[in-house]
């Protein structure tokens, strides 16, 4: 029996999203026990997230209060933190996964694995030199590339699967736990809705609308929700219900919205545990970026994810290929709480159409979105989930950049050589070439600085006074990581490996850097190979006007 600990010191949504990895681990080896270390403030998830054998908690709120409030001795905070970790420290773990990728999780990974060489570790942790060490290239991908790369080409959940080395498995076995009493209550409400509308089962789809997220920048505007409900009420095939948490802010908002409709709307108020039953029994859910999205994914309930403001859907969007993501065009997004007015407002009609797609009531070709709004559909390939723009306007350069970056990653990690550019078949030739020229220029500049760094490295080995020139050229080379070109990806890998140098010997470190520079040179060649493949495909496709295979998008 293998004993696995996952450290996940993040928020509710991130904890739910761990459910995919746990499912895959358990399906690949049913005898494995999986435990989760989370903050105590999210303890309520223990009643809801299935498949976890044991939960451990750090009482962050109490520790913080004990440490920061001057009435308490700091010794109390130290002791409390230590005591919270005693059981974990005394358990024999075979594997520990750092799912947190923050400093706290990383220090704790080092704490729990120190003096225990038998524990197999996945993710990042600190060495005794306080240098960070990564368990694999996927750990570099997750911690060094995805946070920096503007339009992430790999989903976090997939990154964790590759990091741990387990193949994604379809969901199985009640990943969201529910109580039969709650299930019955929700069923009764739905039956009543159908009975009151004189509709037989299957004729009406009940759609839940989540009113609030944890961040106002992500919220769907109240007037948009009202407009959306009006559209839904005009459609005899759907019935809207409002979903709220048991708190005054959401109750007040639901009350205000309901007042617009003479208090005729159905409002379902549920805590985390009961919410699992609600999600399980609804036909579709419309939600801004909240933990509910991750619950829907684990319940396989189709969903429209309305992605605004800080919501980073490319990294952590819906993982269900039957759901859709509605977003302002990526070129207008800043992924923060600023400049929302210029971010292309998502209209009620846009959400309504995305919902119809999710319910398979309309075809993709029938969708007509507002300006600068895009619907993305999740697709699964050998790397995992990829978001393909399927309706609305999108920026071809951004999509190419994402797509080719993913292709480069597939080539590097999976030795996959297939490149399907059918997606770009409608793009104008000059735009494809303009993008390619820009990327090639970036490669040229990067290569120039790489060669200069290599030259200065060799000179510095012969003459110590040239070391400064080497350092300057290395810094210039690393400056390219600020750019968001495909060629930045191998450079990020190089940077992470340079940052992880552990030897106390300068000569030894210089030798490793030299090897890494040559490796980088080879990796950049691979980027060029990707571009050449792409270029020849463009030419082949355009000159021969041959039919390219369609995308693997579920057609409705």
């Amino acid at each position, binding site marked *: 029996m293998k004993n696995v600990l996952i450290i996940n010191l993040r928020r509710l949504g991130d904890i739910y999203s761990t459910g995919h990895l746990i499912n895959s681990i358990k399906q690949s080896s049913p005898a494995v026990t999986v435990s989760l270390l989370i903050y105590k403030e999210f303890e309520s998830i223990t009643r809801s997230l299935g498949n976890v054998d044991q939960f451990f908690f*750090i009482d*962050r709120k*109490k*520790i*913080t*209060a*004990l*440490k*920061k409030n*001057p*009435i*308490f*001795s*700091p*010794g*109390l*905070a*130290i*002791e409390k*933190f*230590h*005591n919270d*970790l005693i059981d974990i420290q005394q358990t024999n773990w075979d594997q520990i996964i750092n799912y947190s990728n*923050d*400093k*706290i999780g990383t*220090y*704790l990974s*080092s*704490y729990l694995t*120190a*003096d225990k060489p038998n524990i197999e570790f996945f993710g990042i942790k*600190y*060495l*005794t*030199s*306080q240098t960070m060490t990564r368990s694999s290239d996927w750990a570099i991908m997750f911690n060094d590339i995805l946070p920096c790369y503007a339009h992430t080409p790999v989903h976090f959940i997939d990154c964790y699967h590759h990091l741990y080395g387990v193949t994604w498995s379809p969901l199985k076995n009640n990943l969201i736990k529910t109580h039969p009493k709650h299930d019955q209550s929700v069923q009764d409400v739905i039956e009543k809705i159908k009975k009151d509308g004189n509709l037989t089962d299957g004729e009406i789809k009940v759609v839940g609308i989540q009113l609030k997220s944890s961040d106002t920048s992500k919220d769907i505007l109240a007037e948009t929700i009202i407009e959306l409900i009006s559209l839904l009420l005009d459609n005899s095939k759907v019935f809207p219900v409002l979903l709220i948490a048991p708190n005054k802010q959401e109750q007040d908002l639901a009350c205000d919205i309901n007042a617009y409709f003479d208090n005729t709307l159905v409002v379902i108020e549920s805590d985390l545990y009961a919410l699992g039953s609600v999600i399980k029994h609804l036909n579709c859910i419309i939600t801004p970026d909240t933990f509910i999205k991750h619950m829907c994914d684990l319940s396989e309930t189709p969903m429209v994810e309305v992605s605004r403001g800080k919501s980073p859907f490319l990294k952590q969007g819906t993982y269900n290929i039957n759901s859709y993501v509605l977003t302002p065009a990526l070129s207008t997004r800043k992924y923060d709480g600023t400049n929302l007015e210029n971010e292309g407002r998502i209209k009620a009609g846009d959400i309504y159409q995305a919902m119809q797609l999710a319910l398979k009531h309309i075809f993709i070709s029938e969708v007509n979105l507002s300006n600068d709004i895009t619907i993305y559909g999740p697709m699964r390939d050998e790397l995992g989930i990829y978001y393909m723009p399927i309706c609305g306007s999108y920026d071809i350069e951004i999509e190419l950049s994402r797509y080719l970056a993913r292709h480069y990653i597939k080539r590097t990690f999976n030795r996959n050589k297939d490149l399907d550019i059918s997606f770009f078949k409608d793009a104008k030739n000059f735009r494809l070439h303009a993008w390619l020229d820009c990327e090639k220029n970036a490669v040229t500049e990067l290569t120039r600085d790489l060669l200069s760094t290599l030259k200065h490295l060799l000179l510095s080995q012969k003459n110590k006074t040239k070391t400064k020139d080497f350092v300057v050229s290395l810094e210039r080379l690393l400056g390219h990581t600020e750019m968001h070109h495909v060629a930045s990806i191998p450079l990020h890998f190089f940077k992470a490996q340079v940052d992880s140098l552990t030897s106390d010997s300068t000569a030894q470190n210089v030798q490793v850097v030299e090897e890494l520079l040559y490796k980088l040179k080879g990796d950049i060649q691979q980027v060029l190979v990707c571009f050449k493949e792409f270029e020849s495909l463009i030419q082949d496709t355009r000159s021969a006007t041959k039919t390219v295979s369609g995308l693997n998008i579920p057609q409705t």
Partner: protein
Amino acid sequence: MGLPITDNYQIKTSKTNHKIPVINGIHLHSMYHPIREAENFVLNHLQLLRDKKNILVFGLGFVYHINQIVIELQKIHGDDYKIVVIEPNSEVANDCLSLNLLISDKVKIYHGLSHDRLYQDEELINFLLAQPGIIAHPASFNLYKSYFKNFLQYKAPLSAEQVLMVIQDEQIKKFISDRFMNEEDIKVALWDYSQSNHRIVNKLDYLFFALEEIAPLNGDAQK
């Protein structure tokens, strides 16, 4: 901070035949009708009792006011409430307890304890962390004003030597005494230590660094 001195203490009987403690000539409850006085007193705190089910009371007296708080809390929160009473005078507290006047077992009384001792009590700490409502019994509060004010304004000692006194775990004790023995402010010392780039020789270093990330000396904890 030492405990307040009582020059004169006696127990009298009210017109309603209730026992009344009198300290340094001050009657802690009404000599006419202590129960009615308590009822009127608690009426002024009803909103607080609605908002908070945990109440910290300064001054025990002979618990007439506390019993009234119990009655109101039970009406509002059922059995889901807790009262903690701080009373500097152990003599009063012992007499009160021997008279068996208290009507609820959900009242915890701390009496005759210094501030340092109080702030080392785990149960009291947990109670304070839950941010209780505070009610001061006026007669007791005025009598021991500086004791209660200093309780509210208490600052825990920060020297390594005193911090070590509250820590039970021997490994942690050794770790702190090996590194910070002469430090006067352990909070600053821990922060400085976490910012240094030294080689890790003890795995507890990682634990302390993580603690500084959770609750840094300055600024907010990580979200």
